[in-house]
């Protein structure tokens, strides 16, 4: 199916709001589960949006911007998975893989902003020295607006303008490629989790990783909430019963009290 001009504009407008939400990390409507549902709504196929949202959300599990890193963009992933599935009539599982280039493109745009906005800092310092509150505030509006506009433009181009190109591209994809992409969806979260580990993991926390891994592997636990309860218990135990002394954490060679 085609995406109409109105739908294209609606998607762009929605993504301006959602893009700002991602930029500020406020209400988390930037996660694929929400983005895809909204996209589905706009394209008149909510059910597709929901299913695509669920799949994309899982494939993007662990891909977070924590620590100032930038993962492939969840908004473009959410929008384009639905758009591609809708326009080319492919399964959402496959569409995730095909939406990825857009997601990575937007990731690099944000990374470009992260770098180039540094330029504004000298000016911001200047305003601060002069206690010029208004100018400083406007500077922040400006940066946010730049982000907002770029989301609008890129989403409009990707979802509306590029659709015919996309269709002809997908027509020539062989079956085995499609099947491979679907399987990739189940493996991709590994990268996200490796990123999380990269932020969190020191050697001494491996025991807790093992606990979580075993709970899911060997118990009939249907979701992660019970694991979080156990993790909370372990954290509480650590807080109340275990020494926090820095020497201890490093391996406790020194004796305390000395």
């Amino acid at each position, binding site marked *: 199916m085609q995406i109409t001009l109105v739908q294209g504009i609606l998607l762009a407008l929605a993504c301006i709001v959602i893009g700002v939400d991602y930029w500020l990390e*406020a*209400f*988390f*409507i930037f*996660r694929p*589960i*929400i983005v895809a549902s909204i996209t589905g709504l706009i394209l008149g196929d909510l*059910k597709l949006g*929901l299913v695509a*949202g*669920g*799949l994309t*959300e*899982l494939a993007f*599990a662990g891909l*977070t911007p924590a*620590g*100032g890193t930038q993962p*492939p963009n969840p908004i473009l992933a959410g929008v384009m998975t639905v758009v591609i599935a809708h326009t080319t009539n492919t399964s959402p599982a496959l569409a995730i893989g095909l939406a*990825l280039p857009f997601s990575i493109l937007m990731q690099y745009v944000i990374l470009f*902003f992260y*770098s180039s*906005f*540094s330029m504004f800092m000298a000016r*911001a*310092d200047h305003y*601060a020295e002069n206690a010029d509150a208004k100018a*400083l*505030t406007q500077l*922040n509006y400006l*940066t946010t607006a730049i982000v907002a506009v770029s989301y609008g433009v890129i989403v409009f181009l990707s979802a509306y303008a590029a659709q015919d190109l996309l269709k002809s591209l997908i027509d020539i994809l062989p079956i085995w490629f499609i*099947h*491979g*992409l679907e399987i*990739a969806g*189940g*493996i*991709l979260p590994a990268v996200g*989790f*490796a*990123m999380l*580990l*990269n*932020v*969190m*993991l020191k050697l001494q*926390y*491996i025991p807790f990783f093992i*606990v*979580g*891994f075993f*709970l899911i592997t060997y118990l009939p636990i249907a979701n*992660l909430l019970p*694991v*979080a309860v*156990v*993790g*909370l218990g372990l*954290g509480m135990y650590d*807080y109340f019963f275990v020494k926090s002394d820095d020497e201890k954490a490093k391996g406790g060679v020194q004796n305390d009290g000395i």
Partner: protein
Amino acid sequence: MTVSNKVLTKKDISDMAYRSVFLQASFNYERMQAGGWTVAMLPALEKIYKDDKEGLAAAMTDNMQFINTHPTLVPFLMTLLLSLEENGSDRTLIKGIKVGLFGPLAGIGDAIFWFTVLPIMAGISSSFALEGNVLGPIIFFAVYVGIFIMRFPLARAGYELGTTALDSLRESSKKLSRAATILGTTVIGALAAAYVHITLLPTIELNDGITISIQEAFIDKIFPNLLPLAYVFTMFYFIRVRKVSPTVLILVTIVLTIVLSFLGIL
């Protein structure tokens, strides 16, 4: 210094919760959240320093220093520092506390919100959404609205704590940060087992005509979820030790999967 005591009203403190949303408005690699942070603090600072332009300039300059912390928890830090500003505390002390706390707060917040709450909510809401149930995104959104609302009590707590329990805060923020890391690591261990799916297809034909699946007869016997675990740690190795960009790893993973699937291995 011409700083008057107790100029901030309850409403000023609540407003901080709203304004804290600016935190990342001009995020960049040089100062990270410094710009948005300062803008969020501005109205309160202006009220505290009133006509003392020099004081305000000094405060603003301090605030423009590098900072990177967790957005949801930031109101706590903002009002804590405001209460010190209000009391005319020494600038060095204020800076010191800010620098000492934003890191642990980031650790605590990331572990709780990015690494624990998000995947849990992703899992629960996806399981609804995959059945075409609109409850999925609705539950997800509702929880995050709830999390946003937490900014208000956090703002109040920071302001009240401000003047009192400063020493214990550093120590206990370290302890809290370790506890949160434990929580987060536990959840990540579970994530690796729950969300990464790798199953080998090849089978071995025995002499007697029976075929056995390598996945079931070998891997699942030794350790179920061994392959997901191994792949997560392979990725981890490339990110941590070889400093490969995650985006590259995503592309490599996709290409590899397609090839292996083509060869009938996956």
